[in-house]
């Protein structure tokens, strides 16, 4: 039956004209993408299978997959992958956890919650670079406010090198990212919470469910689709992190915060190795697309159930 309708629709002149209209509407955007994304992607593929080093112009021999195998067997590459993964997992987990908490708080009938609801957008609105600069200054080893605050209140014995100590640098970068992105999670979750009817929650409470049980069995399942989408977007953003780290630490100290994007940038623009840089770009894009595909399946399953 569906097939008959579909076939009839295909023959229907109105559907034909609709397809033409759609083509005309989508064409400008498609052109932009073709010229500024698709064409460069093809060029990047070409670069990635050639040995292209800018300091050695005129010689660009085809090397096949060599750039890829060089990277895939390079411990520096895997170290950078590992750092990106830990940044991604830790920052996303903290942002989700704190964001849900903050949203629940903003959903309580409290005085001044309107003020919290409007101020919460501030960290998110700060440009990434300004946020990174701000935290770089707060975390400053000699004059930073964090050291002053902790030292003057007796919590630390001496000033700490927060950003130039390999043990703490990544933590400080994650802190800065969490500060900026938690509000976005909170805003999205709050919007979802407001979509849940009070009756559902009150019915559960009348049935004797405590706060925790109500949250676990009534609220959380209704929030799941929103949380999953946030999880998808945040992990993909976080995995390609560049600017916040670049401003705060330049990938240092001793590469302790060198994410995969920073590693690729340094390969391409410090040693001017455009071939390997392009191969790295492809590997990162591939990783993100695989993540996206996994998530889309996951979302599809939740959407159907």
């Amino acid at each position, binding site marked *: 039956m569906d097939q008959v309708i579909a076939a009839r629709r295909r023959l229907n002149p109105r559907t034909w004209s*609709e397809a033409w*209209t759609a083509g005309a*509407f989508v064409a400008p955007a498609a052109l*932009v993408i073709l010229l500024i994304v698709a064409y460069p992607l093809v060029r990047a593929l070409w670069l990635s299978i050639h040995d292209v080093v800018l300091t050695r112009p005129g010689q660009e021999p085809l090397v096949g997959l060599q750039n890829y195998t060089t990277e895939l067997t390079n411990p520096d590459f895997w170290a950078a992958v590992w750092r990106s993964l830990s940044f991604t997992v830790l920052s996303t987990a903290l942002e989700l956890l704190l964001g849900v908490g903050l949203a629940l708080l903003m959903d309580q009938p409290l005085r001044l919650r309107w003020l919290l609801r409007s101020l919460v957008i501030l960290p998110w609105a700060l440009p990434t670079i300004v946020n990174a*600069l701000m935290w770089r200054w707060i975390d400053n080893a000699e004059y930073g406010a964090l050291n002053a605050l902790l030292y003057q209140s007796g919590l630390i014995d001496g000033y700490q090198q927060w950003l130039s100590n390999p043990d703490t640098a990544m933590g400080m970068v994650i802190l800065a990212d969490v500060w900026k992105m938690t509000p976005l999670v909170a805003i999205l979750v709050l919007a979802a919470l407001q979509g849940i009817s009070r009756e559902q929650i009150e019915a559960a409470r009348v049935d004797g469910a405590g706060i925790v049980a109500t949250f676990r069995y009534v609220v959380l399942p209704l929030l799941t689709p929103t949380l999953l*989408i946030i999880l998808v977007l945040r992990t993909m953003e976080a995995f*390609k992190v560049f*600017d916040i780290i670049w401003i705060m630490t330049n990938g240092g100290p001793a590469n302790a915060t060198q994410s995969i*994007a920073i590693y690729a940038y340094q390969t391409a623009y410090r040693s001017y190795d455009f071939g390997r840089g392009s191969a790295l770009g492809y590997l990162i894009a591939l990783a993100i697309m695989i993540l996206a595909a996994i998530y889309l399946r996951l979302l599809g399953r939740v959407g159907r159930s």
Partner: protein
Amino acid sequence: MTASSARRRPRGLLRSAVLYGLMLIAFAAILAPFAWLLISSVSRPADLLAKPLSFIPPTVTFDRYAALTFGANPDSSAEGFRAAMLNSLTIATAVTGIALVVGVPAAYAFARLRFAGRGRLVLIFMATYMLPPIALVIPLYQIMSGLDLLDTRAALIIIYSSFVTPFVIWIMRGYIEGISPELDDAARVDGCSRLGALIRVVLPVSVPGLVSTGLLAFLLAWDEFFYALVMTQTNAAKTLPVALNDFIGRHGVDFGLLAAGGVIAAIPPVLIAFVFQRYLVAGLTAGGVKG
């Protein structure tokens, strides 16, 4: 009502004490870092380097703001900063315009029209938005170099359009799907073409969506750092994020100057966020939840 009944029960009292305590922590966590940025920007350099540090500045100065914006005889940092402000404004505005003009018809097509391969096309656009810039930056650099566009605003406008357009499509599609299709069906019955229906019926009721999408697009372009870092060299095209990054590299720079620059760069997005908060949240949820 809740507050008064809570006050009567000890358990309710404890609960609200905890909740207000948490709220206090939330306020402090949100405001303290930014407050320190503001304070640093108006403190005298010597006060910022004092130990023990005083969190409330003994004297306040707005000299840095004057130097960075309208003060006479700007030094090279201030000159660079002023040029960068103008570049950022021009680029973000142009990108927003292009992305809306190109993206909104596509968003309408994806939301309303039935055609083969629609779902796949939407996915391709989404994937474009998700692509890491590092995968594109090298060929784009070579292309811009070949076109003699390195270190121009045009290069950044072109490049930014490639990721702001899919973003606009994504948010606007969600928004248009939320508008009753009967509205444009009625216009069609009255003899409007699809384009006529889009312009005369759908766009006027989509103004809030267009505003929020446009603002988010502006913020996206305003915020961009990576491409700007690679593509720009001089005051001709450097944007605010790059100019601020240059401040860091300069030896002996006053931290307060960096803070003041940061505050100025944050003014447009923060203003937008507070004034249009309702629209922005609507836009974010339309894209985030329905997309």
